[in-house]
């Protein structure tokens, strides 16, 4: 599975990994939406620390979760972005709807 999800009662932490494109985004989306709907978290963290590649499908992933969360007042945080992922997110203006943070990558992907 390309997403590992933990819930502590308030925060739903979704740790994504591998490459995010149109092909891989679908199972990630189904899995996270299922957990969001069941847990109704106050906050969702999408952690991109282990993501090695992302195209605009990652934007759709963030926007779609934002829409779902805003239906019941949850907030969204995006963390651990590589330079490349950050560039894609900024292009879409996602810094306006979610807290977006670049992360320190330890695997050499600058």
């Amino acid at each position: 599975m390309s997403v590992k999800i933990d819930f502590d009662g308030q925060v739903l932490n979704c740790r994504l990994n591998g490459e995010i494109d149109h092909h891989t985004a679908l199972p990630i989306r189904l899995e996270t939406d299922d957990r969001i709907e069941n847990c109704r978290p106050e906050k969702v963290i999408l952690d991109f620390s282990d993501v090695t590649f992302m195209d605009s499908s990652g934007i759709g992933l963030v926007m779609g979760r934002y829409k779902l969360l805003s239906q019941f007042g949850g907030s969204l945080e995006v963390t651990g972005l590589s330079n490349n992922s950050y560039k894609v997110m900024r292009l879409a203006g996602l810094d306006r709807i979610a807290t977006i943070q670049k992360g320190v990558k330890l695997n050499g992907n600058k």
Partner: protein
Amino acid sequence: MVINEFRMTFDSRSINEGFSRATVAAFTAQLDPTVEEINDIKTAVSEAVTNCIVHGYRNTVGKIYIGVKIHNDNKIVITIRDRGCGINDIKKAREPLFTTLGGDRAGLGFSVMESFTDKLSVRSKVNSGTTVTLTKMINGREK
């Protein structure tokens, strides 16, 4: 002047998105690009190939044709072509956030291709297919 060239053809199955961008990136590695330049190329190619799959061959599987030319001035020209449904209004299709699909598609494919390369051109004919040409200069690491 073109100094090296590569072509490939593959089925428009979404599992090939990762394979195709990695292959193009591997071919361009001979220009000694930076990590950022490699990522730019992979991202732009991924958008173009995804468009062929989700738009060009929407409910069917067809062939996607990619050609990569390396010029002697460190310019790479990548063409991604399908024989799918074509684009009715290219100007509209290139507008940021415009999408005919909805759902989780952000409508930013062409915007990403534009900002991650130096030049994007799109030619298309309805019921005949679409060709996207991406041009990028590879400056590489400071030599």
